[in-house]
């Protein structure tokens, strides 16, 4: 791995290993300020990066850039990170905004994704409903990770499962999005679920 020759305030490019052949992605989704970028940052081997998409105010990705002016458009940011899993395989983690108006963006992000980790805040569980609707709409298998913010009293995971109306098979874990081991364990729970699910469907 090397670095790009310029320095302009953005992180330098950290290149993939020469033997990397395949890339996979997992979405980290959740409502505003639930800790998506924190979790991506805790796990990523590179400083998290940000991409921006131009959207119309109505939420469509801009189809004809020649016809738009700044007034009609807004940008939506996605933070993402990367983990080289073995010399041939790299995993990208995309922090995805939960707003339902970003339909096209979601289609792009969800296409080919292995699954999604839904980050939730036990104090604002209702804010997770639209996010889970989006994940389900795009057919992504998911696990839920409750981000354990400081100062939040203990809670009963059974009650959380009930409040979120989770299927019995959907994993629910508690994690600290700032902590690499804890965030990693949540991700492993998701991939274990994906693996078990795939094995069941295609034995």
């Amino acid at each position: 791995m090397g670095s790009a020759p310029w320095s302009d305030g953005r992180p330098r490019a950290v290149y993939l290993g020469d033997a990397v052949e395949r890339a996979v992605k997992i979405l980290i989704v959740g409502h505003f300020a639930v800790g998506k970028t924190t979790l991506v940052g805790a796990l990523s081997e590179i400083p998290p990066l940000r991409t921006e998409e131009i959207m119309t105010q109505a939420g469509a990705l801009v189809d004809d850039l020649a016809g738009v002016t700044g007034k009609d458009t807004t940008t939506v940011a996605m933070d993402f990170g990367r983990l080289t899993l073995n010399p041939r395989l790299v995993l990208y983690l995309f922090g995805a905004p939960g707003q339902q108006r970003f339909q096209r963006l979601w289609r792009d992000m969800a296409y080919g994704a292995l699954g999604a980790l839904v980050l939730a805040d036990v104090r604002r569980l209702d804010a997770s409903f639209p996010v889970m609707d989006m994940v389900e709409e795009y057919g992504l298998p998911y696990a839920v990770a409750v981000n354990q913010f400081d100062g939040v009293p203990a809670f009963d995971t059974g009650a959380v499962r009930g409040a979120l109306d989770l299927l019995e098979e959907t994993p629910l874990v508690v994690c600290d999005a700032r902590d690499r081991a804890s965030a990693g364990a949540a991700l492993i729970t998701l991939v274990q679920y994906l693996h078990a699910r795939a094995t069941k469907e295609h034995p």
Partner: protein
Amino acid sequence: MRPPRRDSGLVRPYVVTGGRAHSRISFDLVSLVITVDDKPSGGPEAGLSPEKRSLLALCRGGALSVAEIAAHLALPVAVTKVLIGDLTDSGHIVTRAPASPATRPDIQLLQEVLDGLRALV
């Protein structure tokens, strides 16, 4: 001395892509982009836009995903995809499609992801 911020040299996205927001070829956010080594340097790049030259300069260091290229060039993903499509057509770069389990869950691939994560975190 610090070079000037490159942002100031970039024109608006619709100028960069000649008004197009979609590339002819479809690229994923995690398609991998690799420059073609045997393309003679210098001459053939002379006619390229500054953004395409920046993209090639960035990618010459090694493989990166479409999303990383967009982030490093500070261009919207849709615009970056158009540039990558053009540079693929002109033979400057090749792209490698991501492992896509969208149609059939790939148990072997998921096992590899699981093993990798367990070894790392």
